[in-house]
């Protein structure tokens, strides 16, 4: 069975048809060409597919495309303001907070969601706020520092 969905992605009106059992991640990647969200596990354990759905951080492998009707999705592709990177994106580059980079979109989404709720997080807040995202390259040190730097910059 296929479902016709009208939704908002990164502020744009989007329509698609997907299978009733099709995860949002597959819709984003295979139907809409938004491959920034990655499939690391498909079971909600790694966070590489993180997106923000109606303001809430979710694993896009664990929600269905069919559920998106009338809702609003933010993905990594919508994070920068045109050519201007979001402070989190810039600080990830400047703090060497990525190596292979495959987990980076998920971390940026998770960090975005964290800083909206808590603009002045402690190191522990950041570590627990990002604990749903796996990174195998960095040991997290530089990721935490990048989020601290971005939070400071965003507080002005």
């Amino acid at each position, binding site marked *: 069975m296929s479902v016709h969905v009208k939704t908002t992605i990164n502020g744009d009106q989007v329509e698609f048809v997907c299978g009733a059992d099709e995860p949002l991640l597959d819709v984003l990647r295979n139907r809409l060409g938004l491959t920034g969200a990655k499939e690391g596990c498909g079971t909600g354990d790694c966070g590489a597919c993180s997106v923000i759905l109606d303001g809430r951080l979710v694993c896009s492998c664990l929600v269905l495309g069919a559920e998106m009707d009338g809702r609003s999705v933010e*993905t990594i592709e919508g994070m920068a303001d045109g050519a201007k990177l979001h402070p989190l994106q810039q600080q*990830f*580059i400047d703090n060497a907070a990525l190596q292979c980079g*495959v987990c980076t979109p998920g971390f940026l989404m998770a960090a975005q969601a964290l800083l909206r709720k808590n603009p002045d997080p402690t190191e522990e807040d950041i570590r627990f706020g990002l604990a749903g995202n796996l990174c195998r390259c960095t*040991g997290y040190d530089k990721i935490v520092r990048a989020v601290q730097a971005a939070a400071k910059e965003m507080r002005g």
Partner: protein
Amino acid sequence: MTMNPDLVDKTYKVIGTRVRRPDGVDKVTGRARYGADASAPGQLVGLVLRSPHAHAVIKKIDISKAEKLKGVKAVITSADFPDHTNGDRGLRDILENCMARKKALYDGHAVAAVAAVDARTAREALKLIKVDYQILPHVTEVDDAFKANAPLLHDDIFTDGITPTPTKSSNFVKQAEYGHGDIDAGFREADVIIEKSYKTEQTHQGYIEPHSCLASVSPDGMAEMWVCTQGHFVYRNQCAAILGMDANKLRVTSSEIGGGFGGKTHIWAEPLALALSRKANRPVKLTMTRDEVFRATGPTSSTSIDVKIGAKKDGTITAAFAELRYHGGAFPGNWAEFGAMTGFACYDLKNVKTVSKDCVVNRPKTAAYRAPSTPQVCFAVESTVDEVARAIGMNPVDFRIKNAAKEGTKSSYGPVYGPIGIGPTLEAAKNHPHMKAPLAKDTGRGMACGFWFNFGGQTCVDMNVTPDGNVTVAVGTIDVGGSRASLALVVAEELGVPYDAVRVVVADTSTLGHNDMTDGSRGTFSSSMAAVFATRNAIKTLRERAAKTWEIPLDEVVWEDGAARAVGAQHGNRAPLTLKEIAAAAPGSGGPIAGHAEIVADNAGVSFATHICDAHVDKETGKTTITRYTVIQDAGKAMHPAYVEGQYQGGAAQGIGWALNEEYIYGANGRLQNAGFLDYRIPVCSDLPMIDTQILEIPNPHHPYGVRGVGETSIVPPLAAVANAVTNAAGVHMNHVPMSPPRILKAIKALKA
């Protein structure tokens, strides 16, 4: 070939600066394309059917129903892979691992594959394939595999390295010995001898990106493959050989790689995707699930190791011995042998002997994992070293400093060391503020040293000057941690131009000569060496063009700060000719300007590290928390210090995961019980503290800038550093990793009783 000392102490313009990586913006905006991010017109979805049995004869595979399902375009089994390996045992093992032939040798072993118009159809087709198995007894534990009555995996393994060669086949693949001196005499001299046995469990590299490739074989035999890999040239060579293709017909393009750590140095499903594409005459995209990644790719050996070390009361180690038993999964390997070579490499030993015993078990084919085989033996040796130091009443740092290898030491695996960093990392550890910081209750401090060889190998770089006077560099080593930035830095330094004037790309297999893989910490080491030589060749051409323009002899033209300059009394007053000016004049002065280098990058320069770890042990639950961690490692020369730190931190985190949590758990049925990130738990952000780093620079005399590889050594010491910290925190001697809460709790209870 010693080549550099004049450059080592020089102050550099761009090398050593923390520039922004060229792939950074793409990676933070979601634009970077990884293995699963490419598509081709008309592509099919490939899926693999895997054995649920640890060991079984494949009596019959019936694919007829699957082939008839609407939307299925190809179904393949081992019958689609005629043996082209021509007696090459290693290649035959790779072939058999990619697709089981007569027997399934582990839970997860591929037995068939399908290509269909969509994933749902492909999944349905897998269910329609009927495999008739005859289940055989299995063996998954390393010590069990050596037993006389153990189930036999292969009937053609006759232990190598034993005289006379056995006439009966077994799971015991190979025995090897390393060392020098007379250990029996050495142990007789000892005042204290500690002898212990250790076990380590099997771990996975745990890269976040599952294996994925997009294969397209045309009816005329031309083929293309887009794939996440640590070595696209090796993937090309092996896939072509297995499929009976000419290597030049298969063009492999490497995607961005979402982590590999050794696991993407081996081919797995890539030949299947190519064979499916060849049969279906359509492009096929094949992406593994996480379950498949765990069950069918890459883990380390689990091990069983005995160590015996003797020392005098003054702290001199008189003899050291280890016997190492490792497995290669279901196929022969030399993993224990690597451990036998590296185990005592940190020390200057008069009498040392190691014996390695490699075997096969019904587990997935072992793959390299960051300094392969070395963390396990380091855990055993460095835990024992701490016990010896304790027994003679000596501080563990001082004990290691007293016995550390130095320039001129004959290593335990044979070669004599040049300038090395073990002594300096130990001295730095001794003087580090971490070593002197007070400890909280139930917290202990441990330390350990580690070694890795580092590799060089075949490397090929093209450097081209663009008509507007900028530079492109094509390399053949995959960038796993920022090497494109480091290589741009080295070319910019040589040429005297800004970092931004150089763009480095990883070329595909049809546009550059063969390159070995990014393994053995060789990526930046070897490609930077080739990039320097390529740039120097281009500089010679640039000087020739200037000499021609000025009509003066070549030896009166030098290259400095991005321009040709005339020297000498006669011509020294000429205005310099910049790179941009020479590039602009190229069409009339001899054509395009380029430099190439094709080398075997020998003398990679060995690597040493010392780690310090503080661990808190909760004696009620057995849970260990790392509260502080410091990595001190010799980089030779840190081209991009932030990315060197990243290697140190990442390796330490992986080692901490290995020490505390990560392990493959097999059921009595030989099936893997925890093939997912929920149950195979790698460290998350809230598990770790900041990981402090200290980069030492003891130049490698065989690299133009003194560089040593830095990628692997950082995973070597953590198992032992954590274990020694746990001992000092809770009084228990842990001889089995991971030191999960139940194991620690059991040890604490045994101590109380």
